[in-house]
């Protein structure tokens, strides 16, 4: 089984690949190990289209038109476009011979489709009729049946590219029942990432939230001796002021008690509680990071 996942996902674990690429890929239809499609109920879900070289008498212009047709058809996400030159590169001169002179013979084209394991062969031609340039395009299936026919006539060569584009787009729409991808950008979003995140978001939120809570509580508990010390320190300053004003020795006894409390709090904090403060802060920070990651990275997930 393969999918439309980008190749960089391939080295990842199978589970990850399934998570990341699962849903949308299979929504487009069943694809076997070789990548060819199995049409269902008359609809070819992802047809492989061989774009043959445009024939005609416009010399070098034909190459450009071939490339244009291939490029325009490639814009349909449900079409897998193979150019004739790719076949030549893979199979060599013999394939070129098979392709040559086949453009007007539907039986030949059907055989060609079977031979190269494609669902459609896009056959195009261009020629001049007096002052008019004529372009024709027809995708032919493996049964020799033309799935669409398109023709354009232009009086000036400058208009030919636009006419070829229009005819090719129309043919593509007819074959796929879909719009070219640059027209339907909204349909090609990055939904797989959202699907992945949905599974991780909840554990991250819960775990992060718990960690934040535990960390804050630990830090708060660890801070208690510090608060007690600061309170005692303020009390001592106040007692000093009172003693200077009144000179009552009883104030010194109160101050001694306060000193004892302050020293006890200081020792407790320095020897134990400070670790709770630090540890709690680290745990809370990590938890906050997890919550932030869940909320920021998986923003659109439910």
């Amino acid at each position, binding site marked *: 089984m393969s999918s439309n996942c980008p190749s960089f996902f391939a080295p990842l674990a199978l589970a990850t690949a399934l998570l990341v690429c699962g849903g949308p890929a299979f929504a487009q239809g069943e694809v076997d190990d070789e990548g060819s499609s199995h049409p269902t109920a008359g609809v070819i879900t992802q047809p492989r289209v061989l774009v043959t070289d445009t024939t005609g008498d416009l010399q070098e212009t034909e190459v450009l038109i071939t490339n244009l047709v291939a490029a325009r058809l490639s814009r349909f996400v449900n079409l897998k476009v193979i150019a004739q030159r790719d076949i030549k590169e893979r199979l060599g001169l013999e394939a070129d011979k098979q392709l040559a002179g086949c453009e007007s013979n539907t039986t030949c084209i059907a055989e060609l489709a079977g031979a190269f394991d494609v669902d459609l062969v896009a056959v195009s031609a261009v020629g001049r009729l007096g002052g008019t340039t004529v372009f024709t395009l027809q995708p032919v299936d493996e049964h020799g049946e033309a799935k669409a026919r398109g023709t354009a006539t232009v009086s000036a060569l400058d208009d030919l590219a636009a006419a070829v584009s229009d005819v090719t787009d129309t043919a593509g729409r007819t074959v796929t029942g879909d719009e070219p991808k640059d027209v339907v950008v909204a349909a090609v979003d990055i939904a797989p990432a959202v699907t992945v995140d949905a599974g991780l978001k909840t554990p991250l939120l819960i775990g992060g939230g718990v960690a934040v809570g535990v960390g804050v509580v630990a830090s708060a508990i660890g801070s208690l001796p510090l608060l007690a010390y600061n309170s005692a320190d303020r009390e001592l300053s106040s007692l*000093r002021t009172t003693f200077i004003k009144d000179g009552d020795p009883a104030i010194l006894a109160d101050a001694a008690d306060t*000193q004892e409390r302050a020293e006890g709090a200081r020792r407790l904090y*320095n020897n134990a509680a400070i670790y709770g403060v630090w540890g709690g802060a680290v745990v809370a920070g990590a938890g906050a990071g997890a919550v932030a990651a869940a909320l920021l990275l998986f923003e659109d997930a439910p």
Partner: protein
Amino acid sequence: MKALPTLLAASLLLAVGACPIGEFRDSIGTSCVVDEDVCGTDYVCFINDDADDNGLCAPVADYGACDEPTYPVGAGDVASEDDAVRVESSSDVEALNGAVRVEGNLLIDDPRPVGTIDIGEDLCGLSGLQQVTGSLLISQTRLKTLDGLQGLSFVGAGIGVASNPELTDLMGLANLMRVRVPENSDSGITVVIADNDNLDNDAIAEFRAALEDRPSIVIHACGNLRARQENDDNECADILDRILGR
């Protein structure tokens, strides 16, 4: 979402602020032993029970004409040579600036038999001083007050304040807690105030009142301005000699 940065900042502050607590809190109420421990700057070791040298550090309320010492006082202990630290000039006072404890006798005195030394009108340079383990003699000076000695709480072998012709006030010594009798004295007197021409009975009475609840401090005044009529000069000189071990 808006709470997150706050939470992170709070955690960071908490972590940064979580340093060990130092020992720089106010010294009031800290335990001390009057002849051993030095309290914090501008504190004296206050003892309630005269039979016990243990006390609690108490802040000095007033330094008179002097500024209170600032932390750190600095010089710490000053060990005397040949058993005495001598102060005969302003520079000697400056040299003791910041001292908290003098080991041995502290003699602020003119070495000549007659005359006075000029070390200013007060002893502000000694405001950090808390203990003198030997005798304290303030004699033949032009001091008007003893301001600067408010931090002094312990003297180990008697105090003599004698022959200071311009002295009018003794309250610089009002925070004394314990003064021990000199070794060769059997009178029990620990403080002699003698022959200070301008020191009147009111000043002496005020000083006595300030120290009346400290039984270890036995004051004997003689030969001062209005006391001349009340005391025999020879007796006064004798007592002074005895208390100073002369």
